């Protein structure tokens, strides 16, 4: 289980632009490096991140808010910062997927006044 730091407001006014920050613990090993013993270190990257919004009362995977494709040049423990407009109450679903079957999901609920 990867550790994450999710910094997202839990309340917002309708129409307000909110900032979302997501930080995840991950080595982002490029596959180009060698260990101190000289062996190649196997590639281990987060390949894809997505943030979806599931409105209250709705089911399914929700509406895509933001997505990113990550590559070898991105630092370990990647931080992503993006914005969204609060249109209604619901919950954000953050999903990271990557090499070696890596998959991690976090949720954060938002209530719009």
């Amino acid at each position, binding site marked *: 289980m990867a*550790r994450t730091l999710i910094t997202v407001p839990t309340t917002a006014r309708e129409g307000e632009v909110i900032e979302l*920050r997501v930080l995840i613990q991950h*080595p982002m090993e490029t596959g180009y490096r060698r260990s101190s013993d000289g062996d190649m270190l196997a590639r281990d990257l987060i390949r894809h991140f997505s943030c979806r919004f599931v409105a209250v009362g709705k089911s399914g995977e929700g509406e895509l808010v933001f997505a990113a494709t990550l590559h070898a040049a991105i630092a370990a423990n990647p931080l992503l910062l993006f914005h969204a407009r609060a249109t209604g109450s619901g919950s954000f679903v953050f999903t990271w997927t990557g090499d070696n079957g890596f998959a991690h999901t976090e949720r954060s609920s938002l209530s719009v006044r």
Partner: protein
Amino acid sequence: MNAFKVALAASLLTAASLSIAQPNVLDVRRSGFDFMQPSTQALQRDDTQNPAMLWVKEGEALWKKAEGAAGKSCASCHADPKTSMKGVAARYPAYASALKQIVNLQGQINTCRTTRMQAPPLAPEHQTLLSLESFVAMQSRGLAIAPPADERMAAARARGEALFNQRIGQIDLSCRDCHVSNAGRALAGNKIPEAHPTGYPIYRLEWQTVGSLQRRLRNCMVGVRAEPYAFGSNELVAIEAYLAQRAAGMRLESPAVRP
């Protein structure tokens, strides 16, 4: 008259609180933080961006996790870390009477594990150890580094100072040659800091992970092409004890970010 008394009392109070709050203006020592790029400083200042907070969060969870034959966690003995661990990281390395030697914070965590929890000690730079150390250090953030006034530490501090001034390696440099004589000047892409251990354990951008002061010390030793002392060796702990003494009174920034 009464109003005068109140005013006098108020001004005395202000003076008293100022003398506590005011940092020593004559202190010319500077933390590694002051030598960093503004972007790296911003990363440290903001807990929502600082990657080291991931280790702190991990440490918070580990604090309550029972391990070992005694079935105890850190919380079993130390209860609320906000009070019990406040100032602890600012004090270490310290003399451990039971071991009759000086231990650093990692050493103390491992001592607790082996004696109280009856769990195996953690290897140097083990993620669990770094997470616990980060979490404990976090409780002292903002406090002044306060090495104990313990006579039994004098010998180790003197040893540490001697090692600090000792030229080593093929490149034949001492710690002092860079961190005192050339502090503030450029070495490769970065400024040479004054070697005050104000933020350990640190998230070092070069490592892409959190590491201890001993890892950092060993890094420099390899840098001058010297054989680094082993993790947990008396020499490294002695250097740590000397550096803490040298940085006494400076504010702890843990968990810091360094380039």
